[in-house]
């Protein structure tokens, strides 16, 4: 649900940047875009590498428990030298190692969920926006229904019937996420199809498929990218809520979300348990955001930089 409220913000973020940049001088804009790509790319690269190289980088086994050394503070907060660079969690597991592996799990899970929901949502939004009529009404009312639907119920049902698994988790997350794309793409498509060049293309007898493929989709792509980049954070947070009830990543596998919710109770005495994964999430989201923004810039036909 939360992600839904953001749909519009995301769209606006996109158009804000576009407009701001149109007004700017070309060389400066180009420099800025390159910069964004660099900053975002670097963050994302670091995060992705951290996840990818987790087995090499992690100082300990992320699931190895040491119950007698639980909730030890990070080395920089600890008065005594600590074997745990970023502290240990409620089972005495090494937070650094869990973060490294958790990044990996969270990126794969939220990435797949975003891919699935993005593709489905975009297609549904396109269909509804382009053809409108009966199909459009049904799709958009489906979106309404999704909004009123308790996503917890879906998660419980899916997990109850098929058990906890990564695939099921991705399905639950994707079902909760598609509305955002569908709504924004719907609005975008309706606006785009009245554009003079689309009307012109239709007048010269272009097929619907061709119009969608050549004119609508490329122009709607930017906004989809923006939503997708911001949904990275949303998906991780949703997974956190689900893992609280054992509906998320199967424990004891680490994920940023489950680490976040495991630290929920002890914010008052061991704030690092939730704060460290929280900061990683925020950083990753910022990086993905910058990168996505730069990419959109490069891909967008109208603002494409030669």
């Amino acid at each position, binding site marked *: *649900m*939360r992600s*839904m*409220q*953001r*749909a*519009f*913000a995301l*769209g*606006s*973020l*996109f*158009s*804000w940047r576009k*407009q*701001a940049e*149109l*007004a700017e001088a070309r060389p400066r804009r180009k420099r800025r875009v390159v910069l964004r790509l660099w900053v975002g790319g670097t963050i994302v690269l670091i995060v992705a590498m951290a996840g990818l190289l987790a087995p090499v980088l992690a100082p300990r086994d992320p699931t190895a428990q040491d119950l007698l050394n639980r909730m030890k503070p990070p080395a920089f907060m600890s008065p005594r030298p600590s074997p745990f660079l970023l502290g240990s969690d409620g089972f005495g597991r090494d937070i650094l190692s869990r973060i490294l592996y958790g990044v990996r799990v969270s990126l794969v899970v939220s990435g797949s969920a975003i891919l699935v929901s993005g593709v489905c949502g975009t297609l549904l939004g396109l269909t509804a926006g382009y053809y*409108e009529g009966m199909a459009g*009404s049904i799709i958009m*009312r*489906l979106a*309404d*229904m999704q*909004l*009123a*639907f*308790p996503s*917890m*119920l*879906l998660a*419980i*049902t899916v997990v*109850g*019937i098929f058990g906890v698994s990564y695939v099921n988790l991705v399905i639950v997350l994707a079902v909760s996420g598609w509305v955002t794309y569908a*709504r924004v793409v719907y609005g975008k498509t*309706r606006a785009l199809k009245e554009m003079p060049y689309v009307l012109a293309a239709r007048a010269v007898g272009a097929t619907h498929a061709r119009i969608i493929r050549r004119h609508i989709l490329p122009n709607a792509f930017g906004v989809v990218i923006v939503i997708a980049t*911001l949904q990275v*954070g*949303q998906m991780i*947070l949703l997974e*956190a*809520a689900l893992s609280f*009830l054992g509906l998320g990543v199967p424990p004891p596998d680490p994920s940023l979300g489950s680490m*976040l*919710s495991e630290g*929920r109770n002890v*914010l*008052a005495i061991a704030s690092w348990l*939730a*704060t460290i994964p*929280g900061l990683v*999430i*925020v950083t990753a*989201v*910022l990086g993905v*955001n910058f990168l996505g923004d730069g990419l959109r810039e490069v891909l967008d036909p109208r603002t494409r930089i030669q």
Partner: protein
Amino acid sequence: MNRFIGKRLLQLPFSVLGITLIVFVLIRMTGDPVVLYLPPDATQEARAQLTRQLGLDQPLPVQYGVFILNLLHGDLGQSLYYKKPALDVVVSYIPATLQLMGTALIVAALLGMVLGLTCAFWKGSLFDTFFVTLSVFGQAMPSFWLGIMLILFFAVNLHWLPASGRGTWANMVLPTITLLMYLLPSTLLLVRSSAIEILAEDFLTVARAKGLSQRAILLRHVLKNALNPTISSLGLQMGSLMGGAIVTETVFAWPGLGRLSVEAVLSRDFSVVQAAVVVLATWVVLSNLLADVANSIIDPRLQAG
């Protein structure tokens, strides 16, 4: 206009029916409320009796048919755990929900308008950058982290505000801030982007050339054009916030609909889940409709569809 409203209102029952059907089937797939309701050493006979009483021994289509028939009479069943009509239970949670959501939405809308416009006018300034960055942060920040931190800081350490519960305005402050953290970014960015868009458009250049004062420009054109997306987003938020502020409601012990529906799902109180979904679905559809209508009143060019 009237035809459009009529059409959407006509779709309303179908949306509600659709979602109740899905929820009705799904919740029955999640397990048997009897198992949770009766003690584990309850006899088979007591279980069978309760199952009969709840109508769960009937085939699913029959159960749904009965549900729809009763729905038409305004009867959404009896709550297993509240021991009163499920609809009454849901309705009793609405005032608290509206109070918090309404405040948060209004503050988000007003603050978002003001901040968004300011950001747009001084695009690229430190002020602008601060709020845009804050927005990106706000979107990625876990509500419970912020909520608990606010409680620890303002209620436990400073003793300025109550930690939880519902009562005076003071109880509203912390949950409202927590909600704002994810409501404000969308409104702010939205207003900002539309304002920048409008400020760059030709008719404003013409208006300026005509010698209209800055303030007149702001009010007449920018505000009016910035209102549209704000209303659409408000409509969406209005719809989704009713049932979607679960974390904030839980952290601040706020008796809201989101918490109610999750608790009902977890305790398998089928009729409360169904009643909540009927109310929420109606609310979502109506608030979206309201937003569309408001938009086409403000800007008649936008014939909503």
